């Protein structure tokens, strides 16, 4: 049975098969099912087309004239870990299928391929890719706390931070980045790494707050001991940077193991006059101020002084209030795009409102509040009236700071039913008469509003 053709204009599919007749056959089957595959006959051609078209799905013959299909797959996954590679092979050995999966193949098809099997494998991979894209689109991007976001602005605090990062990027010494959560500490670590000589390798991150001693030992060293065979984050970060989140939360045993590894590197460095065998730059991200009493940090003092060679203090948003206008202006369009809204800019009164507020949650709190406003409203310009009182108060009526109490005062002596009516009618008015949008803002069913309006209408007619 052949699957019915489904037009997939946006589906990018690369077919890699060196036997011309088989390539022709698979292409015909896929076209009949509604796909428009791009075709390659060798590993080299496949990698060129992969770079050019960035396909979501690759049907890849295992044995190619110029190289092993597994090599091509590894290279493709290195370039785009989200690509789905379906390996086609004439070899039914389970070991090969296992090896393909271990190397990251999405599926392993053994010849002879029926048209149903071929099409369903591609359609399945395509559907999964689409679901993941959807999920990713739903994830709130850090925006303001991203590497680009944090460093925007011209306040003295941010200019000082940029200068510090630039100077420290040139050094290989361990760094402590300290400050409140939400100030963009991880983004700072990313920038520090990205502008260093280690940037050609990826920044490896370990969260020291989320694991027990044995798990953390394994995460860092790949074994239960720093003397075991190399592995874990330390090995992955060889020649690169290792970001440790809240290292003071590491169990004491792990702290000692880390200290031992750092000492080994120091000794090797002293002995041969060059970087130690691990050669990892550690960037510690912590809420603790390294200038405070070492004993109070929870870190072994020996380890503390090895980690806190250099220090960066992340400024809070209250120290860079003048950057808020730039920060929100630069992110509003991106936020709107992520949420499927039209907002292109933010009104000056809204900027003034945001600049006047307190931000204990710093960039993260500001980003959350903006997202909430974008999710709840639509239009070209984000107005002050659209801003919620707080980022977490999802259902509060929009109001400028200082007016919330006034609004409540204005309701003094009003019955609860009347207050509810005013609230609902105000929401409907804010949405140009749209009951469904008002209902969404108020988190109630549209039918509730219609029902209440019927009651109000009846009361009005009776009264009038």
């Amino acid at each position, binding site marked *: 049975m052949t699957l019915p053709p489904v037009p997939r204009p946006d589906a990018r599919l690369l077919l890699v098969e*060196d036997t*011309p*007749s*088989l390539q*022709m*056959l698979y292409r015909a089957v896929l076209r009949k099912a509604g796909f428009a595959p791009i075709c390659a006959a060798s590993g080299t051609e496949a990698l060129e087309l992969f770079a050019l078209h960035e396909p979501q799905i690759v049907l890849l013959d295992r044995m190619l004239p110029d190289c092993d299909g597994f090599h091509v797959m590894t290279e493709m996954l290195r370039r785009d870990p989200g690509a789905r590679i379906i390996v086609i092979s*004439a070899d039914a050995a389970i070991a090969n299928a296992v090896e393909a999966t271990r190397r990251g193949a999405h599926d392993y098809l053994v010849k002879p*391929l*029926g048209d149903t099997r071929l099409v369903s494998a591609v359609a399945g991979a395509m559907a999964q890719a689409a679901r993941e894209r959807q999920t990713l689109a739903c994830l709130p991007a850090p925006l303001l706390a991203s590497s680009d976001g944090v460093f925007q602005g011209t306040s003295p605090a941010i200019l000082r931070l940029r200068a510090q990062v630039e100077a420290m990027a040139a050094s290989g010494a361990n760094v402590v980045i300290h400050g409140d959560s939400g100030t963009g500490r991880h983004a700072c670590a990313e920038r520090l790494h990205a502008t260093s000589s280690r940037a050609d390798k990826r920044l490896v991150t370990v969260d020291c707050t989320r694991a027990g001693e044995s798990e953390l030992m394994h995460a860092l060293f790949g074994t239960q001991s720093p003397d075991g065979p190399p592995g874990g984050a330390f090995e992955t970060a060889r020649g690169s940077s290792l970001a440790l989140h809240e290292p003071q939360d590491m169990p004491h045993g792990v702290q000692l193991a880390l200290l031992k590894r750092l000492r080994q590197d120091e000794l090797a460095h002293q002995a041969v006059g060059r970087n130690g065998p691990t050669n990892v730059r550690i960037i510690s991200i912590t809420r603790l101020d390294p200038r405070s009493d070492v004993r109070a940090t929870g870190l072994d003092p020996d380890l503390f002084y090895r980690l806190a060679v250099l220090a960066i203090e992340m400024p809070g948003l209250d120290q860079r209030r003048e950057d808020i206008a730039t920060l929100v202006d630069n992110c509003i369009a991106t936020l709107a795009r992520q949420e499927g809204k039209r907002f292109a800019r933010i009104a000056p009164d809204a900027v003034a409102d945001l600049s006047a507020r307190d931000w204990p949650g710093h960039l993260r709190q500001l980003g959350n509040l903006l997202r909430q406003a974008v999710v709840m409203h639509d239009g070209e310009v984000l107005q002050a009236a659209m801003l919620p009182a707080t980022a977490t108060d999802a259902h509060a009526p929009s109001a400028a700071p200082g007016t919330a109490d006034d609004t409540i005062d204005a309701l003094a002596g009003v019955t609860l039913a009347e207050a509810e009516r005013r609230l609902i009618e105000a929401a409907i008015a804010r949405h140009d008469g749209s009951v469904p949008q008002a209902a969404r803002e108020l988190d109630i069913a549209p039918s509730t509003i219609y029902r209440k309006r019927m009651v109000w209408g009846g009361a009005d007619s009776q009264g009038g």
Partner: protein
Amino acid sequence: MTVRNNQERLPEILREMGDDAVIAALCQQADADLSSCLSRLTDGGASHCEKMHAFHEIKGLALTLQQDRLAALCAQGEALCRDGTLPRHSDTLLADVTEACADLRAALAAWSGAGCQT
């Protein structure tokens, strides 16, 4: 050797094509591929690697076109290439592969020329 030119003998994947012109083009291309692979197998100058790849290509075609004997012979050829023992067995094996290929090429000609009509 007799080729029964009917729907039942047409491999499933070709049968599902449903378009005689497409089937004919595929059969002609498959014939050309078989011819090219056989040339490499009989070429004294071809390396083991090239011969193994030729066996592999024929095996892929044979599996797809449901030619079990040819696929088995090519799998044997691949294994001999991998072991480096092909020269000791090449005459017998190549004769068998050539014969099985001839059967397949005759079938392809029949499928191509007469479409898939019974």
